[in-house]
């Protein structure tokens, strides 16, 4: 069975877990680094990025998540998760995990009163997607290997770079699982590839 972990230090953890369960997947709330060994993919949920940042440092998550990413295991960051993954942050702030080749601006659409819902056209999803943006960031600039999946008002709000998926909005706050399914497919493909390469290795050994 495919197990997807959700970094459970703060934020909309339960909401992600419920969505995964409706898709018939197992969700594991990650509070300790050793749990990363047990999962096929990792979600960095929405929440307060400064709080998550502080706790990931305090509890030694930085290197283990980077290693997880170095193994090309799929990671999905929503909102605060996008901020945590960025290689660069706009302004004076120091970047955190630096696993995705993007420059991200925090609270880029304004304060809470500017938070909004809007319909988006997303690459890979046929029907318009109703997205919830809450004090959301956006991607100011992206590296050449980053595929832009959606824009709002000319700003990049969803993207993918190899095994890393991100969005500035909150798929976990609606009943629509189509965006999450993009990630689930990435996880399942990775699992298959892993299985195949293990078989290959097996064949090569005497």
């Amino acid at each position, binding site marked *: 069975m495919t197990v997807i972990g959700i970094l459970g230090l703060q934020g909309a953890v339960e909401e992600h877990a419920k969505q995964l369960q409706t898709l018939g997947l197992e969700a594991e709330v990650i509070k300790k680094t050793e749990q990363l060994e047990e999962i096929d993919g990792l979600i960095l949920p929405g*929440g307060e990025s400064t709080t998550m940042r502080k706790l990931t440092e305090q509890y030694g998550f930085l290197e283990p998540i980077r290693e997880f990413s170095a193994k090309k295991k799929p990671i999905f960051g929503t909102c605060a998760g996008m901020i945590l993954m960025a290689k660069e942050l706009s302004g004076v702030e120091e970047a955190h995990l630096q696993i995705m080749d993007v420059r991200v601006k925090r609270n880029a659409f304004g304060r809470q009163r500017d938070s909004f819902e*809007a319909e988006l056209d997303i690459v890979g999803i046929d029907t318009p997607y109703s997205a919830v943006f*809450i004090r959301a960031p956006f991607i100011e600039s992206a590296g050449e290997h980053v595929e832009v999946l959606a824009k709002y008002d000319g700003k990049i709000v969803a993207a993918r770079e190899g095994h890393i998926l991100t969005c500035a909005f909150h798929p976990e706050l609606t009943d629509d699982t189509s965006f999450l399914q993009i990630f689930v497919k990435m996880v399942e493909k990775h699992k298959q590839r892993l299985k195949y390469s293990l078989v290959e290795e097996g064949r090569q050994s005497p």
Partner: protein
Amino acid sequence: MEKKLGTDNVKRGMAQMQKGGVIMDVVNAEQAKIAEAAGAVAVMALERVPSDIRAAGGVARMADPRIVEEVMNAVSIPVMAKARIGHIVEARVLEAMGVDYIDESEVLTPADEEYHLLKSDFTVPFVCGCRDLGEAARRIGEGAAMLRTKGEPGTGNIVEAVRHMRMVQAQVRKVSVMSDDELMTEAKNLGAPFEILKQIKESGKLPVVNFAAGGIATPADAALMMELGADGVFVGSGIFKSENPEKFASAIVQATTYYTDYELIGKLSKELGRAMRGIEISKLSQEERMQERGW
């Protein structure tokens, strides 16, 4: 692409992003920065923390906008502020200033002894206090996007917050197993809007997050409220009335995240210095009990 502001998803969702976190009362930029550095998910900008409001007496109003602005400029995390119960203009002023969340709060002296704000009229989301499911459902009916226990603010005594959290939880459980024909009478008894109760019965939970507030003074208090089912905690006087605010703030954040890791909470609680001085609830007169405010 039409843009919709201030929807239920956006207002309630904002509170969902605060889950598992600690919201701290601050009275200036310096305290706000300490709170942010400790890992607070938001700060509540105030002129005085509740224990000082208690000590000062007189009429407690919305904070001086200069303080709210100072705090908003100092940190990048969300900033909340309190308006008096029913004070439409204080709330509109805070909304116009761009405050991220308004607490229609019993800590301040009520402006209206009959009506609360119609919170669904605003773009900014609101949090309100509750002691039982009736009060919770009335506030949701008016448009509150987040709830918190009232507890007894500024006392450093957790007993009332525990009472209120247990009460709401027990009543939610009761409603969720009720048969449909019992629901209207329950609505009448609780003084709760029928439609809201129906939603709670169908989903088995409140439609908005419910934090703990009013008397949290130690890391163990915060963890206790999480254990009892709170979605997060507000700490008012507990941090900046303690001997070592930096350490207290960080310890409370960690205890909230790892609320079942008792060894860790023990370790965090060591060498913290003195917590705020507490008040026994029975020593408060009826007029001094802030939780009695709100209807």
